[in-house]
Every structure is written in C-alpha cells, then in structure tokens.
C-alpha cells in the first residue's frame, strides 16, 4: 500500500502567504473567542465542588435544576455525564469570610444537594465527589502557566542549540499558535478545561514540535545536497519529502486518540478532544507555518551549512612533526 506518490516537489512555499493568512485569521478568531467567552475552567483551577450522582433510571436534568433552585442553591450546574443515568453537578465556591468557614459552607452545600436530590428520587447515589479550595485552585493555575513557560523555553533552547535561533523562534510561534487555537476551541464550545486537558496541550506542544524538527532536519540535509536550489525550493523539497511520514505518524497517533475519544468515557473525553485538535493543527502549523516563518526571519544556506564547513576544515590543520 502506498498513499503518497509525489513525484515532484509541491510548491508549498509559493502559497506561504495563503497559509499565513489562514493561520492569522484562525489565531485571531481563537483570541477573540478566548476574550469573548472565557475558558470554562474546571474546579481544579477555580475552586469549588463537583458531585457525580448516579440514578437507577434516566435522570431528569430540568427536574434536578428545579429541586436545587427550590433548595436555595445558587449557581449549581447539573449536566448529563456519560450515560443518561449519570449527572454531574458543579458547585461554585461559596464565598465566606475565613477559609475555615468556606469548608463548612461547602460541606453543608453538598449535603443540601444530596438531601434534595434524594427527596425526589431515592435512587440517587453519590459516586464521586471533588472539592478544591480556592487557594489550591490558584496554585494549580500558576503551576500550569509555569509548566507552559518551561516547555516553551526548553523547546526554544533545544532548537536554538540543535539548529539556529531563527528556527527556534519560528517553531515556537507556529506551535504556540496551535495552543491558542486549542484554547480557542475550548472557549468557543465551552468545553471544560481541566488539568488533564492542560496535560494534553503540553504533550501536544512537545509532539508537534517534532514535525518542525523533522522538516528542518531534512532542509538541512537538502541544503547540503542541492547546492543550486533556492531556499524556497529547499523547503518545498523538505516538506514534500517528509509529508508522507508526517501524515502517517499523525494519523496513527490520532487512531489512538480516537479510541480514547470514543471508548474512554467522559473523563477522557476532553483530554482526547484537545489532542485531536492539537494533532490536526499540529500537522499544518508545524510544517506550513514554521517554514515560511523561518524564511521570513531570513534563514539562508549559510545558517545551515556553517557548522559542517568547520568540520571539513579540520584536516587542514597540520601540526609539525616532532
């Protein structure tokens, strides 16, 4: 079997402007949605409580909402979770002076929820119960930001050593633009952004940087082999030469992710969603955004071949015989 029978280099670079325009528009849209409908952060970041309740028969969300409102609970968000018999209820952090009171307040709130649910349907059982205090939430948010920063700096430093700073900049911009787009999707659809989703975002960041590395690696090789080609042609050839591997690899990873998306249940759902978006945009951006960017930053043959020349020069040094 063979999917890619590409006999000639595809002139990707000629259409660089189009790709850049697409990226720029998606990016702006993502930023807009992030601003317009902020991320639906999970309680891990905001503090609050989540209760998962199981019923014998399909649960009636409207009725649950009604009961909770009647019990005087403000801001509870019941949603179906996985099957129709499972309901997840998010409770926002209850404001109270002093942290001590907050714990008690949350405790009472949860008890009230369970009693009122049971009063309607006795089969309601609490299967999962998470509570995160406000302080922990803040710490997790800071830690998340720190992790993202570390990944960016780490990857840039690595690429700068491995290739050249211009590649590092091009790659990190291309891949951060993926991250923003993933976040944009989560903001637009109001999917819950939880810790596992953050893990997915960081994992995908490390993963799609690979693509840029592979392409740049090939470009370096081409610079050495194709001495008369222009930089555009070099990049075209590099992208064309690796596109088969890029698509197959991403396709295979996506198969795994797809399995999680379908079979992994509600807990893994958003995690897999983030990965899916990341993989799709990763293919595109790490190749079609990073290469033009590197080109705009003025990468030339000399930047690639420089180190190799030094090596070739070594034998010229002849030491005098004793």
């Amino acid at each position, binding site marked *: 079997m063979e999917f890619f029978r590409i006999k000639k280099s595809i002139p990707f670079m000629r259409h660089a402007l189009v790709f850049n325009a697409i990226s720029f528009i998606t990016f702006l849209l993502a930023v807009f949605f992030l601003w317009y409908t902020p991320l639906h952060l999970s309680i891990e970041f905001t503090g609050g409580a989540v209760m998962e309740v199981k019923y014998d028969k399909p649960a009636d969300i409207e009725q649950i909402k009604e009961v909770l409102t009647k019990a005087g609970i403000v801001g509870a968000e019941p949603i179906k979770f996985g099957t129709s018999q499972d309901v997840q209820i998010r409770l926002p952090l209850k404001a109270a002076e002093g942290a001590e009171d907050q714990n008690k307040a949350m405790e009472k709130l949860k008890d009230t929820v369970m009693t009122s649910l049971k009063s309607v349907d006795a089969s309601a059982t609490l299967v999962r119960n998470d509570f995160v205090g406000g*302080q922990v939430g803040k710490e997790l948010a800071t830690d998340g930001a*720190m992790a993202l920063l570390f990944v960016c700096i780490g990857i840039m430093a690595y690429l700068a050593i491995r290739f050249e700073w211009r590649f590092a900049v091009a790659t990190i911009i291309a891949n951060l633009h993926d991250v923003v787009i993933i976040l944009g999707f989560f903001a637009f659809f109001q999917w819950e952004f939880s810790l596992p989703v953050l893990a997915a975002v960081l994992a995908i960041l490390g993963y799609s940087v690979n693509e840029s590395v592979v392409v740049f690696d090939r470009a370096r090789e081409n610079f050495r082999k194709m001495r008369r080609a222009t930089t555009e042609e070099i990049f075209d050839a590099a992208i*064309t030469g690796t596109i088969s591997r890029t698509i*197959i690899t991403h396709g295979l990873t996506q198969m795994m992710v797809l399995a999680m998306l379908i079979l992994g249940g509600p807990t893994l759902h958003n995690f897999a969603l983030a990965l899916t978006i990341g993989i799709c945009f990763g293919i595109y951006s790490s190749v079609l955004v990073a290469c033009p960017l590197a080109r705009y930053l003025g990468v030339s043959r000399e930047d690639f071949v420089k180190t190799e020349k030094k090596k070739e020069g070594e034998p010229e040094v002849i030491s005098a015989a004793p």
Partner: protein
Amino acid sequence: MNKYPAWKYVVIVTALVVAFFYTAPNFFGESPAVQVTGLRANKADAALVTRVQDALKAANLTTTSVLLNGEVIRIKMDAESQLKVKDALQAKLGEGYVVALTKLTNSPDWLHKMGAEPLSLGLDLRGGVHFLMEVDMKFAVNKAVDRYTGDVRVMLRDKKIYHNGISKDGENIVVRFKEETELKRATKEIETQAPELALKNSQDAAEFVLTAVMKPETQTKLRDSAIQQNITALRKRVNELGVSEPIVQQQGQERILVQIAGCLDPAQCKEVIGRTASLELRLVAEDQASGQNIDAFERYRTEPAPFGTDKMIGSRGEVVLVKKQVVVTGDKVTDAQPGFDSQNGGSTVNVRLDSAGGRAMLQTTRENLKRRMAMIMIENDKPEVLTWPVIQGEFGPQFQISGMANPNEAKNLALLLRAGALAAPMKIIEERSIGPSLGAENIAKGMNSLLFGFALITVFMIAYYMLFGVVSVIALGANLLFLIAILSMLQATMTLPGIAAIALTLGMAIDANVLINERIREELRNGMSPQMAIQTGYDRALDTIIDSNITTLIAGLALLIWGSGPVRGFAVVHCLGIGTSIFSAVMVSRGIVNLIYGGKKKVSKLLIGNVAWAKPVSEKSLPAKA
C-alpha cells in the same frame, strides 16, 4: 551485513524476559482478603496467627490462606465469607488490633519473592477518598506564644522581678518595667531559661520595654513538629478506621495528604479524618461558679466571660467557664482506653500522659485537689467541653476519668482523647472521593481504548508496511510490556490519565517505526540494495527519533515538575515511555529485522510495501539555476 552481535540479542531477550516477569503479576487479578495489624503495643506475630486460626476454626469459617508478612497477617477467602471473617476476628481480637477488608493479588508467591508486584492503582481506578489538608500554622505559633507568655510570667514571679505587666502583641511578648535594673535582671533570666526567645530592649516615655519573640529556628522547629504531630494523629485516626494501607504523608511545608484507597464508606472516612480537632485540659474557673451542679455557670450564657477565663459549651449544652491557662495539650496524651471502675462501678476512661504532661498534671492536681478540670475538644475553632470531672487525688502521668453514663460513652471519649491529639487545627483544602464502581468503570474504559487503539494501529501498520509493519507492531508490543514492567517495578501509582498516557505514548512511539520504514522505502527508491537500505534507514532515522523524543521529554518534565495529582501520573508514564520507545523502536525492531534479513547474501526484495517508483525529489528533477 545487518547482523547483530550475540550480546545485543542477549540484552534484548533479557530485557524482554525481565519485563515479562514484572508485568505478569498484573494478570492474576485480585481476591478478597482480610488483614490484621496490631495497634500500639500489640504486634502481629506467630502467636497471633495461631489465635487467628483458632478464632476462624471456632467460627467455622474456611479460608484459603493465613500468612504472616512482616507485621501484617493476611487472610484470603472467598468473597462471601470476607465480611464474616472480619466480624469474627474483630470480635475475638478486640480493640488492640485493626481488622481491615482488603484485596490481595493472586499472583504466585515466587513472583512476589522476586519483588514483582502488580501496579498500584490510583484512587480514580480503585475508588477511595483523597484529602489534602492544610495545617493552620498561625494557630500553632499563637499557641506557642501563649505558652511562652505564661512561662515568662512564672519566671519573673519566681525570681521576684517586678514589672508593670506582660502582654501579647501578635507574635511578640511585651514586658514593661519601671526600673532598668529589673529589665536587665529579667533579660538575664529569660536568656538562660528560655534561649528560644530573641529579646529586644526599648524605652518609651515612662517605661522600659522588653520585647521577646521566638527565634526563626524555633519557629521552624515548631512548624515541623506541628505538622509531624498532626500526621501522627491523622495516622492514628485513619488506623482506627480499619482500612488497609492508608497513605498519610507530608506535602509541601504545611500540607498533609491523606489517601484511603478502597474505602467502602467515604462518608465515614471523611467524618473521622475531617474531625479537625485538638485537645486541651484546663482548670474550670470555679471561683466564678454558683453551686456544684451542671448549671453552675448558667448566668454566663448571656454575660461575657470574666477576665482570664473562656466561656465554652459542654457536651450536654451546659455553659462552662474555664481558665485561660492550658494544663496539658492533647499531644501529651499517649493513650486513652475505656475501662471499668471496680470500686464504684460504672464506666471509666484510663488516660496515660507522656512525662512532660505527667509533670504538669502532678503539679496542677496537687494545687487543685477537689477542683474540676475540663477536657476540651477544639473542632474547627469551636471548643467543646467533653467532660469536666472533679480532681479526686494527686496524680501524674496515669489517671482515670470516671462517671461515664455507659460503656459506649467511655469508648467514645477514649477515642476522642486518643485521636484528637492534633497540634494545630487543619482544614480540608482538596477532596476527592470516588466510588469503587466508578473506579472499575474507569479501568475498563481506559483499557478498552488502549486495546482498540492498539488494534487500529496494528491493522494499519501491517497493511501499509507488510512484514516491516509486523516488526513495528511487535516492537510496539514490547514497548507496552517494558512500560508496564517499569511502572510495576517502580510501584508508580496508575491513574486514568496514566492509562491515557500509555495510550498516547504508544500512539506517539509508532512514529519512530514510521520514520524508519519510510526512510528504508526512500533509500530503496533511490536504488540502494535492500541490505544497504535497512542499514541506512535505521542509522539516518535514529537522529530524528532522538530529536523528536527530546522535545517530548521537555513537555513531560514540565508536567512532572509542575503537575499535581493525576497529571503527575500522566507525566511519569510520558517520560518513562520515551526511554522504552527508543529502546524498542530502535533495538528490538532492528533485532528482529536483522534476524529475518541479516547475513543473507541475496535479498532481492524487502517486504515493506510498495516502493516501485523512482524517488520523487532529487537535485536532477529541480530546474537548474543559472
């Protein structure tokens, strides 16, 4: 060409065999069990094993095995008799032992002796409760300052040093003097008797002021000991629950993590753990009492508490006035057991204090005979007087509280005295509880997606790369084996994100094989001989594989450092997966390919799918530049 030296095969085969044995325990499943451990002075030993066996025989219960392992006795049986065994043993062995329900792996003993254990499952897979508690350090510091204030007062009184008053100002103890000589005397006295305090002199309009504050190292020591003591107290409480292998450990500077896996009743666990209580013994302010009865302090229900006393509510709703000075704190209580008063009848609680507590008690009881002492439980800043008995005699570290209404009350009081010994109150800042059924569901879902994804990859790889696809899939299988083996060896806790990370790691690891296979195809198209193509393909792909794994590693490390809880499980797998991926994709798959093609003189064709067309991009195909 393409022959591996024998040692490389030895390495590969050894790695696979070791990995196989360490993965094996995960496949045997678990069976219900009951475990017995000793509390306090009681230890589980061979004698206890005999007692357990006798008890089981007496109750006519059959078990699969009774084993002594270190200081734990583990008894295996079928699911139906598990509860019966627990009840029978608890009744027979009594209070001094913890009898807990648990699950034990069915893997054979020799695997266990090799150190091969099944993966330890996280709470989200087993069900259980998880609490993150924060110790209120301000409270601990405040209490210490109170204690020092009292000490300083006693010191000055003993040496007859005259002062204009001692007061507490935040974390400072402020003593005012009229005469400078008195201040100097006091400074000398405090310096020798309480070297933990740092002193500072100052002077205002009319007075000389001595300010004492705890030295930073004293504060650190205080914080450390406060958290350690709370951990000990929590451990005691959790042990009272009778669960197997609870985790109670320090996290960060002032946090304690409590995890109880396989907790059958989360509400009960929480009640016991969440009981953020500390214990204090104080004298009752009897000079303010009207009469000897329970309503002696009734008038203070509306009136404010007089100077030097605190108003508290008793367990029967009565008002009790107690002195501000604390005689003994709960951390001095080493044991409290319900008992029976042979002289007067009725239930009692026998309390034992440590030596420091004993000394304080001796002095207080000597001076306050026939007065009342209050046992105060402070729960979430809310004090409750458990009981306020009359001091009947002079006593030291061992004494008896009598006059309980019934044995049950005595038992409860003993439990509260024993388990309530916290240095400072704690609050729950994070809580997760997962029902056991949800845990089983999570395992099933995680495993299903892993297997389904693996199957999809297998089908595609074999269809696309034929024999080399088969090799890749075998390498991927080896990767999975290594990963699970290492995780089992490290006894890393497996969580749902951890399973997701295994799936994702495999999904990403196949990249290495795709790289290699694509490269080999390309070299073949370039007209290389099959043997050369294998050689070059593997060599050239290696650089790229290492590159791509380094960037993944950076992301993994970030998650490991800043991730918490379930995400850390994800990160551990992610990082380990990089190592196993490189080994299996490069070493294992190459080894197999070499076995198939290596050393053969004439290989006319590689079974790697379609390569029957010329290389697409080469210098020749590009337009020549002037």
